């Protein structure tokens, strides 16, 4: 058992930071799952055709930001329901990935790369980047005027309006950033694996949302939550060593553990937080 399972934590943390940016701006991005997959493919294709790792981790988030802007266009401009539109994106991106993979390689299978994820004194560079992104998120969101406005757009739109400030632009920026981080998470996932596999995101985009709630929407606590979730995943992976356990049990375990953890935190939040601090029912009161 590794104390810090770097390869499991890194993509989860980066995606959870993406979820954090969108959630703080009041437009929770549930398209992360699809964006991770798209980012993974974008990174692998970039590396396949250029051979450059650096370019791969730039192109992926750039494409992710575009998908974030697409979601922003749907929800902010066309006023579509943010959840439904994001579900649409979650279906669209794997379909597009399948199409691209099919037209370039003639199959829907695995695309292999001959690269190894770079290490830095035995620590994967991607993990260091994820930590740096956590620091940057904390700094930008809580210690700059822009971050304050962005959080206000999420928590008190009426206050923003009374100050004559619009929320749409900020929310659009948050969704673009969220998409970029989601795709970067996918890029890290694929580049660490040195391959693109259909369905590579495997629910991680959803588990990132759980990390967000588990971490009470604060960057460092979210990072800690990602570590806990990575431990559960590692535990269920090592359970696979026991031959007596059917594979289905092992494959279903991460989601099951996640839902248990999620319910426990929800229950704790319900018990310990005053009524006024509870999350608004976002989108439930649909017009």
């Amino acid at each position, binding site marked *: 058992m590794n104390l810090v399972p770097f390869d499991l934590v890194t993509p989860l943390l980066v995606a959870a930071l993406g979820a954090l940016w969108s959630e703080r701006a009041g437009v929770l991005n549930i398209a992360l799952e699809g964006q991770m997959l798209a980012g993974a493919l974008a990174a692998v294709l970039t590396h396949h055709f250029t051979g450059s790792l650096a370019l791969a981790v730039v192109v992926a988030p750039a494409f992710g930001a575009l998908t974030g802007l697409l979601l922003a266009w749907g929800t902010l401009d066309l006023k579509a329901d943010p959840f439904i539109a994001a579900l649409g994106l979650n279906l669209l991106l794997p379909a597009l990935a399948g199409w691209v993979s099919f037209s370039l390689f003639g199959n829907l299978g695995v695309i292999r790369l001959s690269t190894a994820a770079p290490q830095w004194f035995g620590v994967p560079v991607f993990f260091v980047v994820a930590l740096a992104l956590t620091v940057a998120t904390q700094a930008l969101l809580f210690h700059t005027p822009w971050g304050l406005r962005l959080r206000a757009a999420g928590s008190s739109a009426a206050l923003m309006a009374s100050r004559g400030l619009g929320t749409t632009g900020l929310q659009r920026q948050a969704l673009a950033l969220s998409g970029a981080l989601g795709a970067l998470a996918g890029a890290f996932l694929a580049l660490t694996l040195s391959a693109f596999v259909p369905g590579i995101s495997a629910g991680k985009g959803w588990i990132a949302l759980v990390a967000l709630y588990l971490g009470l929407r604060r960057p460092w606590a979210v990072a800690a939550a990602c570590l806990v979730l990575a431990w559960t995943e590692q535990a269920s992976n090592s359970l696979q060593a026991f031959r007596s356990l059917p594979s289905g049990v092992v494959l*279903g375990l991460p989601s099951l553990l996640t839902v248990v953890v999620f319910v426990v935190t929800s229950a704790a939040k*319900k018990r310990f937080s005053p009524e006024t601090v509870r999350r608004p029912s976002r989108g439930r009161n649909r017009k």
Partner: protein
Amino acid sequence: MTSAAGTLAALALALLLAVALLVVLGPQPSGALRAFFWGPISSGLAWGNLLNECLLLTLTGLGAALAFGAGAFNLGGEGQTYTGGLAALAAAVVLPVAWGPAGTLVALLAGAAAGLVLGGLSGWLRVRFDADEMITTFLLSASAVPLVDAVITGPALGSAQSILIQSRPAPEAFWLPGLLAPSNFHAGVLIALPLVVVFGLLVNHTAWGYRLRLMGRNRDFARYAGISTGLYALVPLGLSGALHGLAGGLGVLGTQHALVQGFSAGWGWNGIAVALIAKTNPWAVLPAALLLAFLDQASRTVVLQGQFPFQLNALFQAAILFFITARFVVPRFFTGRRKP
């Protein structure tokens, strides 16, 4: 612009996207378009398969509509359908063959019960622990699917000769009688259609349905009006799960006669698209399901006839979901009215 026009706009956009792709990417545009629009209705067999899919989507769509209409997001339709299929198969295997049609009914009820438990669990978690059902339904479904897979490939595995990975067949005595042979259509339609009527009446013409819709429109107001918001969050999710489970049961006893690995893939998401096209109104679920079934069969036909390299279904679902709740603004030029 009215909401009905918005729905039409979303569907038109999705269709336009498909036609554009067929023309640009198909090896032979005219053949691709003909296969797409004519294929699903070109023969009795095609009609039967179309109606079979419509029947199943009616049930999952009805389930999704019921939950959405009450303001509860059920994103676990895939797992609820799959689990329902397993429960129905298990019941069919255990029950004595002499039961005949009664056994079929019991097996279908077992499927519905499995879905009810899975959906109701999320509802209960919502009421008891305030755990967001959007996340719990999805995650519970995601953990159920590999478990069902494990049963199919483990204790219930059928003969190795089949191309598909599937369980042993259900006893023939419990199969639903087929209609329009040799297509997949079957007598399950005699269960699905009455259910549409029952829920149409319940939701639109009873006090219970009124409260349910009130919950969907505004949960805070419903609470203010004295509605037990807990009960009205639990019941729709449970019923939604039950309808998905029933669809899974019909898929096993009516369509495949065995549990095929991954057979329900896409039913849950398509059901959500049906519910949204129908604006969560049970009466509108039937035409919406027919439409989506047509699109699905059309994109299958195009691939089968070699007119197109890959399935368009996912693109359809995606485009429809993305645009269906959007409010399209008609440029002022067309309406001739000033902006307010």
